[in-house]
């Protein structure tokens, strides 16, 4: 299952010329306001007929200006959660939710539907109309409506922006499951680091209508060159490990080439491969192996490169047993510790800062 896309379109004062492949998993479209994210999503959904485009989903061509092919939106089976909720104002929440069900060739079972409704916390709202919902409630109904239509590809345009953290924390695992179990590709527009790092398998960076960078999220996020574009706080790296065991005190231990890594318990069977993300912001460097410290993860590393930014910080690229790691520290500390390519030191990572990151695995974080 994958989505191939190339699209050219001009609006007055804005030119879009983008192409990328979204493989299985979650592809996050990332870019500044007005960079063309919604426009691309609309083309995929079949709501905007661009000047020139070719869009195909797992080999089926949905739109091809060369041959004139154009599959209408209704026959694409693509779920779309709009940036504005776009609920049907005259229908109850229940009717909104079930609107797409009758057209689905593979309708969701009652149990599955009920689970979605419960996860989204919509049970008490079913008889209301959209006019009587709060902003976040509307958005949750919109998500439910798209999910219940049983799509084969899901488009989500900043679906969680208006939700509180607690609600996000409830919905994110579900999206992860969707990604992992249903193997439904997701094209996801988001501004949120947390969502990107939790969900994304592929990251497409848009800049003024063009793809600035696209690729596996680990590559894009750990590229120190992209740090300014992504925002320094978003930079980070990925380590791959194997689940060694689950400890009683709520921790999971991984074995990785970089060393043992502890993180909050993850629902993955021992032996499973797991990816974890470590934000550059969360890494401390020490000249000597620190003792009696609350951080459980201390990795022996070698400095590969140091990149100076504008502010007081530097971005340090590290090698940890063959894996790459990023650390963002002050210039002063870098000088004090003599951080320069070739220098060996220790990277300290708080257990609780390690975020599990699962691709194609039945692995989610315990809440």
């Amino acid at each position: 299952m994958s989505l191939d896309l190339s699209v050219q379109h001009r609006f007055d004062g804005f030119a879009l010329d983008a192409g990328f492949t979204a493989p299985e998993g979650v592809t996050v479209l990332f870019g500044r306001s007005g960079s063309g994210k919604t426009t691309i999503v609309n083309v995929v959904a079949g709501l905007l007929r661009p000047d020139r485009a070719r869009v195909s989903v797992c080999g089926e061509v949905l739109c091809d200006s060369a041959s004139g092919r154009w599959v209408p939106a209704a026959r694409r089976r693509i779920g779309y959660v709009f940036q504005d909720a776009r609920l049907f104002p005259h229908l109850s929440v229940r009717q909104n939710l079930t609107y797409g069900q009758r057209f689905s060739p593979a309708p969701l079972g009652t149990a599955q539907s009920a689970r979605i409704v419960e996860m989204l916390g919509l049970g008490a709202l079913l008889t209301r109309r959209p006019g009587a919902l709060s902003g976040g409630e509307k958005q949750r109904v919109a998500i439910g409506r798209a999910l219940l239509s049983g799509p084969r590809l899901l488009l989500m345009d900043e679906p969680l922006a208006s939700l509180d953290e607690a609600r996000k924390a409830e919905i994110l695992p579900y999206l992860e499951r969707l990604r992992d179990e249903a193997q439904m590709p997701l094209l996801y527009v988001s501004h949120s680091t947390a969502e990107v790092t939790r969900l994304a398998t592929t990251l497409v960076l848009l800049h003024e209508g063009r793809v600035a960078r696209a690729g596996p999220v680990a590559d894009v996020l750990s590229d120190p060159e992209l740090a300014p574009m992504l925002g320094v706080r978003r930079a980070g790296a990925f380590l791959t490990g194997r689940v060694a065991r689950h400890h009683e005190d709520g921790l999971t231990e991984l074995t990785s080439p970089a060393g043992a890594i502890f993180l909050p318990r993850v629902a993955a069977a021992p032996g499973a491969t797991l990816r974890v993300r470590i934000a550059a912001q969360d890494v401390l460097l020490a000249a000597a192996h620190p003792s009696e410290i609350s951080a459980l993860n201390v990795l022996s590393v070698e400095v590969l490169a140091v990149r100076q930014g504008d502010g007081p910080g530097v971005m340090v690229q590290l090698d940890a047993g063959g894996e790459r790691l990023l650390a963002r520290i002050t210039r002063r500390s870098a000088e004090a510790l003599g951080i320069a390519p070739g220098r060996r030191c220790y990277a300290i990572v708080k257990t609780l800062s390690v975020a599990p990151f699962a691709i194609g695995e039945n692995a989610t974080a315990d809440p």
Partner: protein
Amino acid sequence: MTGWLGPEEWQAVALSLRVALWATVLSLPPGIFVAYALARWRFPGKLWLNGLVHLPLILPPVVTGYLLLMLFGAQGPLGRALEAAFGISIAFRWTGAALAAAIMGFPLMVRAIRLSIEAVDPRLEAAAETLGAPRLWVFATITLPLALPGILTGAILAFAKAMGEFGATITFVSNIPGQTRTVPSAIYAFLQVPGAEGAALRLVIVSIVVAMGALLVSELLARRVSARVRGS
């Protein structure tokens, strides 16, 4: 009450109601269709269709009635075709009165519905399409219900017009008691005779009462519809 109006007048009231109801009900489907086409499609001849729909409003009613007679009369092309195909004749029948009323009310109905359809946010229709709904279903479940205020308005305008239509009706189907003598025809007849104003006034009151009742019902319906859409 039966003493207040004679049996002939009651007959006229009953007939007017029947004519107005059928005129309204039967012109709704084509009215909605034409309104939708004018609101959402681009096609050659759109301006002509729009003009044609408005003709009955522009022409003096007598002319419209006269044209109908030319078309649907015993010698008229459509009249002959109907007669040959189905053995139906509508000139001088109450069905003809309903047709005349429907045609006279058609521009009012189409305009109101068109206005409401144009006000329906096409992005909602697009949303419905992404959920897999075919165009016709989207129309029936999104566009139509959201345009309901305009459809109600169109229907009530057509009904009111049908209750009051005189010129086209009397020209096309004449004034046959019990068959085509609607309330306006009866009122007209009374007005031709010196001193019969009282009788005319009684019929005027009856038609006001009927139409006000229809208005009231439509207002209450409209209120409920818009409360529904606004939420709660």
